[in-house]
């Protein structure tokens, strides 16, 4: 295995998201530059709470197999470690095991052998309850305080690990080749490799922060990216020759999906980028220095969890008649009131009827600045109820009422809406909601994250 010299550690990240695919030719160009590790993240809360709530993954199993096989092939050829974080998107134990099984399956099929570490991130609910009572759990941002009911309701709760569990996995068992982790702070694998080699943690976290998105820091944005971390700076360069990093693109990248442009909180501390210097080294490579890391005391980790919240059905309909469109709000209010009256036997607080009016305010709701509706509307009515059967029944009643309800000035007396699809009512299955997004104080940054080692 190539070991980092005292002067430089090189990390290769093929993509900002495992499972999205990446150009293998650019990845191979990266391997030719003799990186000391390959890191790739697969985590995100961005596509919704259904992953944590229902055990879904961000990408298909087939997509993960494709990307992981390329990574393992590189590991076999170069013998450098491959670190994969936040398995499946949510990083639950369930998905660490799915990734572990994919890795074992590929290794068997290709006749490869290596040492695998699996790091888990599900957190025992009893521990969270205990820490909550001890006043060691706080909301992260505009989130209601946690209570026992929400802990119980969550399908599963994970915590974002820092660099420490990766360091432990690499140190504790001789020669680990592949690490697959549960929920992790996205930069953790890259930061761990650099911190382990003795480099400045502030630069390690900052480089990890940029690289976890692949070549999103380049212009145009891309996938494969190479980071060169040295004693007092790091350099970043995309591998696709058609892309370039500029001081502006690298500096501005830290804005993306972040609360603050240069204060980035993570496990164990906050990265302060306010004093950073960005220099153009070549027309495609940028040098960064001046990153600062402010450790937090006590150490905190972010908890993430989601619960199921009943069942949904929708119907989708078009409207084109200007006499109808001009009165749409009044007509819908009447339809909803009529539907609720019809289902008087269903407790009214147990279901919701929510219209989405595309062509009027479907995207921005009350914040929509344009008040004049378009010449045609797409009407989606969302019904959420305790069971799928009730959701669909309420949806059906609302649709037939909207189709046939009279309104002032109506001259199209055969029907009010144009239905594109069958089934006319579409069952969506279970709805989910994020209900845990809190910081928990911990004493030991590795204790919550058990590691399993095996020879594959």
């Amino acid at each position, binding site marked *: 295995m190539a070991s980092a010299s005292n002067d430089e550690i090189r990390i290769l990240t093929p993509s900002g998201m495992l499972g999205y695919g990446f150009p293998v030719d650019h990845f191979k160009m990266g391997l030719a530059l003799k990186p000391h590790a390959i890191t790739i993240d697969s985590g995100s*809360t*961005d*596509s*919704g*709470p*259904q992953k944590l709530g229902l055990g879904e993954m961000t990408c298909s199993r087939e997509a993960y197999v494709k990307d992981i096989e390329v990574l393992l092939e590189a590991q076999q050829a170069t013998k450098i470690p491959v670190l994969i974080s936040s398995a499946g998107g949510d990083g639950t134990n369930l998905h660490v095991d799915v990734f572990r099984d994919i890795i074992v399956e590929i290794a068997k099929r290709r006749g490869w052998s290596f040492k695998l570490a699996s790091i888990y991130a599900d957190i025992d609910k009893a521990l969270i309850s205990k820490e909550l009572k001890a006043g060691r759990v706080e909301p*992260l*941002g*505009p*989130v209601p305080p946690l209570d026992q009911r929400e802990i119980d309701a969550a399908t599963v709760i994970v915590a974002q690990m820092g660099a420490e569990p990766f360091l432990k996995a690499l140190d504790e068992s001789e020669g680990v080749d592949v690490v697959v982790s549960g929920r992790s702070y996205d930069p953790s694998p890259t930061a761990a490799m650099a911190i382990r080699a003795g480099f400045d943690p502030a630069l390690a976290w900052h480089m990890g922060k940029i690289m976890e998105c692949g070549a999103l820091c380049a212009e145009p944005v891309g996938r494969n990216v190479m980071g060169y971390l040295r004693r007092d700076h790091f350099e970043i360069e995309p591998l696709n020759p058609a892309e370039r990093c500029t001081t*502006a693109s690298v*500096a*501005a990248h*830290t*804005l*993306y*999906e*972040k*609360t*603050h*442009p*240069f204060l980035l909180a993570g496990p164990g501390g906050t990265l302060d*980028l*306010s004093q*950073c210097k960005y220099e153009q080294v070549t027309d495609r490579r940028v040098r960064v220095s001046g990153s600062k890391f402010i450790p937090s005391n006590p150490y905190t980790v972010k908890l993430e969890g989601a619960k199921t*919240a*009943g069942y*949904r059905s929708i119907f989708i309909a078009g409207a084109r008649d200007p006499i109808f469109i001009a009165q749409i709000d009044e007509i819908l209010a009447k339809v909803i009131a009529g539907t609720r009256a019809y289902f008087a036997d269903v407790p009214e607080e147990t279901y*919701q009827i*929510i219209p*989405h009016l595309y062509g009027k305010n*479907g*995207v*921005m*709701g*009350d*914040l929509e*600045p344009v008040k004049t509706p378009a010449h045609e509307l797409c009407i989606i009515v*969302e019904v*959420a109820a305790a069971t799928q059967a009730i959701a669909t029944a309420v949806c059906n009643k609302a649709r037939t009422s909207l189709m046939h309800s009279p309104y002032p000035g109506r001259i199209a007396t055969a029907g009010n809406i144009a239905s594109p699809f069958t089934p006319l009512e579409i069952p969506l299955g279970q*709805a*989910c*909601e*994020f*209900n845990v*997004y809190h910081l928990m104080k911990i004493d030991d940054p590795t204790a919550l994250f058990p590691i399993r080692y095996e020879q594959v």
Partner: protein
Amino acid sequence: MALVPTPLREIAKVVRSKNAGPFEITLDIVFKNREDFDAVKKSGVITKELVSQLYNVPTQNIITFGFFDLVNAVKITLPRPRPQGGIGETDMHAAQQHVPLQEIRIPWQAV
């Protein structure tokens, strides 16, 4: 030279919105260069009060608001109107909530 009210979408390089976690929405306005950034800042049009009005958020609930010269950008972070992806969601990624910012008129030199 006469200044003409010009929408921000004709001045900025980037005007975008996105989730910052499931409970926050963050808005970025990135300028092409320091001159444009300084000119927009100096115009005094983009304020917490304007953001409060456009996004129906009390000023005290605004999480981040600032002109950041390190990146020639305005960054605004607000509480999400509802937790991401729950019942009644209209924009899972909060990727299309930037339009009110695009339409802000800045007194700008006519081209």
